[in-house]
């Protein structure tokens, strides 16, 4: 079963109450599933970078088993507004 960008977006939006999610399929010829995500969630407030990434990893634990490469950027709504 291939993991889709839409599926990842839906899950992150629901589980992490993300206000903004970018999912980019970075699959090359070699890999079947590679994704780059940007998650903006108020749940990241007061959390360290490692804690935030762990939250995303936990949310996508099942999907990550299928995913070959995974890049993530995690921002709070305030950090997102500044960019």
């Amino acid at each position, binding site marked *: 079963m291939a993991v889709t960008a839409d599926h990842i977006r839906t899950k992150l939006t629901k589980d992490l109450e993300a206000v903004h999610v970018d999912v980019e399929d970075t699959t090359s010829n070699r890999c079947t599933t590679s994704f780059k995500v940007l998650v903006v969630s108020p749940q990241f407030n007061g959390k360290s*970078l*490692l804690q935030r990434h762990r939250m995303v990893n936990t949310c996508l634990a099942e999907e990550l088993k299928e995913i070959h*490469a*995974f890049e*993530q950027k995690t921002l709070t709504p305030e950090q997102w507004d500044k960019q």
Partner: protein
Amino acid sequence: MTSLFRSTAQCLRSGLAVYRARPAGGRSRAASARFLCSAELQKDLGEMVKKDKVVVFIKGTPAQPMCGFSNAVVQILRMHGVDEYAAYNVLEDQDLRQGRHRDPAAPAGQLQVEIRAPAKLCTVDDEEGVKDFSNWPTIPQVYFDGEFVGGCDILLQMHQNGDLVEELKKLGIRSALLDA
């Protein structure tokens, strides 16, 4: 008797063929072997990450990274002038030594460990062991002073926002970027 022997041999052969054709079989076998020594492995990994101030688990070696993400970690450390760190290669040592590209479908094998300065070689289980140990799903993995720091994205962001210089300072390492 001879025919019985022959048919048994055939069974064994065909069984072997099935095993080879289905990587899933190899996976489960590797998993049970890992289960047997997992406690020992966790202890080993616990000691490995504490042995050196900076420890990385990567695909390939610092001299020849086999993946863009691992390469990014190596390059970031190099930029900061961090030369002495332990680099553990999670790919099969056999394949690496012979310059073969590892088949992603093949069961993960032994973890070849290369520590630069002081040069040291040890062998532990495969990359699944590292992933379980840190509860982190991907390679590369970076440790400072025995503490899990994160993967490539986290190291890159720490590099960009200046945190990495501070973290290295805590380890008693002066970032080369301060002198640049």
